[in-house]
């Protein structure tokens, strides 16, 4: 394919820090360009972005357009939309890439609508076939993937963080930083600050073993099963999915996922969890993952080292019973006839 492929990447930053998804986007854009002629450039928007722009140019080795806007201290829907339109509309970009985070998922679809562009969100795969590029995204909670195709002149993509990781090592030559300045954008949204999530009182970030409950637990009366399972491990904690916290079965401080905690325990036991990307994003760093789910097609099994297709209501009690039994047998000084075979 000889057609020009110009790609714009919209950087995501907060509180003066580049968010890691920005570097993921840069890596994604390079793969998307796939040797085709054209440019990849990064757009950085904000008030105080000099350093961020320089850093991205160095780390990603891509040209950076720093769009300074007085008064734009933090991400804002109106301002981002207005500024991106001003700087990118009509410039012949084939793709505009934004992160599928709380910022990108908000402004990117609106941007696509205003640009009359295609829009594919939550991209977590891409492949080329016969000169056409296809984008993959999760559907049905990750149980299936959809292959998407865009025939628009411009396509806005939001890319799932944590999937396309930059290759190690700094690029040979840093990109060039160009600067543009805009007057403050007056919008219809008036920000009044950020309320920080409460600290991790439940200690799930430090736990070595996490037993996590999903909606498959069925009802609050079954929650003790999860707690009892956690008790057999030292340094363990109980966590859950958003649905479990929404229903009040666990406090929100124990929610794992994009809008909850990010954890990386040595062992993660997922009980009745479907494996939606928003949940997996928070536990991808776990060393060893065991999943118990009655649906053999649950997406969580694709993220697991050990898969148990069973009903948790019956399986967890059985597991605990067998564990206790083995312990008792071991605890009794081995007398003739009391020996345990196997182990």
């Amino acid at each position: 394919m000889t057609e020009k492929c110009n790609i714009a990447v919209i950087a995501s930053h907060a509180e003066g820090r580049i968010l890691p998804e920005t570097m993921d986007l840069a890596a994604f854009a390079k793969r998307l360009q796939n040797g085709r002629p054209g440019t990849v450039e990064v757009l950085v928007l904000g008030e105080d972005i000099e350093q961020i722009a320089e850093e991205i140019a160095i780390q990603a080795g891509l040209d950076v357009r720093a769009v300074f806007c007085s008064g734009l201290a933090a991400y804002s829907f109106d301002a981002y939309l207005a500024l991106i339109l001003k700087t990118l509309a009509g410039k012949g970009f084939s793709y505009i890439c934004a992160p599928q985070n709380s910022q990108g998922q908000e402004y990117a679809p609106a941007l696509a609508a205003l640009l009359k562009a295609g829009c594919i969100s939550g991209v977590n795969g891409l492949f080329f076939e016969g000169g056409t590029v296809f984008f993959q995204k999760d559907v049905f909670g990750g149980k299936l993937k959809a292959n998407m195709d865009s025939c628009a002149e411009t396509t806005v993509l939001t890319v799932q963080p944590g999937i396309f990781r930059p290759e190690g090592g700094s690029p040979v030559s840093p990109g060039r930083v160009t600067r543009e300045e805009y007057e403050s954008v007056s919008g219809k949204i008036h920000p009044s600050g950020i309320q920080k999530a409460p600290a991790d009182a439940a200690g799930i970030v430090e736990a070595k073993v996490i037993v996590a409950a999903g909606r498959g637990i069925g009802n609050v009366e079954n929650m003790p099963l999860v707690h009892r399972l956690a008790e057999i491990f030292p340094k363990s904690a109980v966590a859950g999915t958003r649905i479990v916290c929404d229903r009040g079965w666990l406090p929100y401080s124990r929610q794992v996922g994009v809008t909850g905690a990010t954890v990386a325990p040595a062992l993660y036991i997922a009980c009745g969890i479907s494996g939606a990307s928003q949940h997996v994003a928070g536990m991808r760093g776990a060393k060893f993952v065991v999943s118990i789910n009655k649906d053999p097609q649950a997406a969580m099994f694709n993220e697991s080292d050990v898969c148990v297709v069973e009903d948790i209501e019956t399986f967890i009690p059985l597991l605990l019973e067998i564990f206790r039994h083995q312990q008792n047998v071991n605890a009794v000084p081995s007398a003739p006839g009391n020996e345990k075979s196997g182990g």
Partner: protein
Amino acid sequence: MKILVCVKYVPDPDHVVFHASENGRIVIGEMSEFRMNRFDEFAVEEALRIREGKGDVSIDVLTIGPARSRDVLRRAMGMGADSGVHLETPVDGYISPMTKAAWIAGYANGKGYSLILTGAMSEDMMNAQVGPMVAAFLGLPCATQVIQTRLPSVQGSSSGAVLPDVCPDIYVEREIEGGSREMMTIDLPAVLAVQTGINEPRYPSLSNLLRANKQEIEIIAAASPEGEASGETDAMVEMVMPEKNRAGMHLNGSPSEKAEQLIAILREKAFIS
């Protein structure tokens, strides 16, 4: 004050059957059960709560889809919404969020809605696009992942305050990474995409359901004569099974055998002694 809530009829993940069609593609089987998109239940509930807090609010619910999607309007009306609008499509199948948003914006335009609520995301297609797109088409401000709303209260009044008929703005908190919240005031009219956990959706009441069954639903043919669907810029080509990201060893045997194997693995890895 008028509120429009967009509700989608989706396959229930617990009762969806996937088939491989003749060309090897995965399709949703006839036996699948459908219900209201979970995120949209929270959007309907939020509208009801706003009405309870303010009074003098009318709530319209809108869905796009084939004839059977009407069920979801009855459910929303059963929960307490005032009336239903069905933008009916002739056939089942994938319609891009862009097309749906254009239809919704086309319907809502000029009808004087102060708030248009959507869910954060549809459970089946997981696009999280329709809300912001509707806002863009109507030139309205938008917030997604909304986890709290509050209309301005009248100074000095006691509970059950009656607000001025036209509210100038709404206080909104939206959830961002890690569970932190952005706080803001948004000028009305606005589009809000509602996140789960913002409230506790009620069940439809029998009396409301009976009322909803008698009430007429406005039905509008959604496919435009100009063949708007041909304007689709992005399309779902096919659905495929995902790949494994880890070993994914399946334990086999009876439940007790599986439990024994699992304990052995956990011992071997020294997670338990």
